[in-house]
């Protein structure tokens, strides 16, 4: 078994209201050094055996279901 991580983030030019809300809460914790926050999603896919085909499949899953390419970017990496 292996774990593949897919990170999905809003594109830089797309407004991220959730990240802004988190950023806005930081001063209430007394934290003032953070200049920006962007919020994304992390997916952990358990895969029986990793090879080029399964990685290609993960890319296909990432771009068709896990992310919306209109508003989000994704990265794929094998854990460990």
């Amino acid at each position, binding site marked *: 078994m292996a774990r593949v991580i897919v990170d999905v983030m809003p594109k830089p030019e797309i407004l991220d*209201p959730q990240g802004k809300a988190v950023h806005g809460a930081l001063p209430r914790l007394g934290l003032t050094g953070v200049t920006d926050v962007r919020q994304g999603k992390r997916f952990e896919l358990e895969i029986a055996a990793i090879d080029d085909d399964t990685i290609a499949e993960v890319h296909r899953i990432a771009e068709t279901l*896990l992310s*919306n390419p*209109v508003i989000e970017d994704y990265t794929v990496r094998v854990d460990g």
Partner: protein
Amino acid sequence: MKIGVITFPGSLDDVDACRAVTLAGGEPVALWHGDADLRGVDAVILPGGFSYGDYLRCGAIARFAPVMDEVVAAAGGGMPVLGICNGFQILCESHLLPGALIRNDHRTFICRDQVLQIDNASTAWTSAYEVGQHITVPLKNGEGGFVADAGTIAMLEGEGRVVARYVGANPNGSLNAIAGIANERGNVVGLMPHPEHAVEDLCGPGTDGLAFFTSALAALAASA
């Protein structure tokens, strides 16, 4: 004329949409997300709500429901398809319409009567309106901000595919105050506000929404 209304797990406004079809003079047909069958309908409405709990992204999982393959194929053949609110989000996720809907820029859910301007009265769903006409229908969404890249926005504007626009203060951060768009052919329309909640004087702000449904029935009658 039969207009199908799809119920997904988490749809809320399917019954209202059926009622609007009836009041417009059509025959509503209940369709089920899990059935790859449009049951012989002449048009389809994807109603508002929170399909699949809005998990992952609004509309992202509904896109892969068995019924959606049929909807995509029928839309390609020219069948009138209207997506309202969550239905609009599903149409964007299905690539039947360009762009995407993101969380409102002010981060709060909005629920109010909203004035819209009809900017395209030649689609299957807006032919009973006039260009420039102002209508008032309810707007209720948490993720109604329409976004697309600059090239797509320019294409939509240039081709007259912005169907309706918010009048007054932008309620959710939609680019160019876009409330609804159409595909190139004009048979597929996505709309964030809710015309199906403005079809009777007893409930809602009036009957300004009814013409979306009478438009489709007229389009179907004309093509029959």
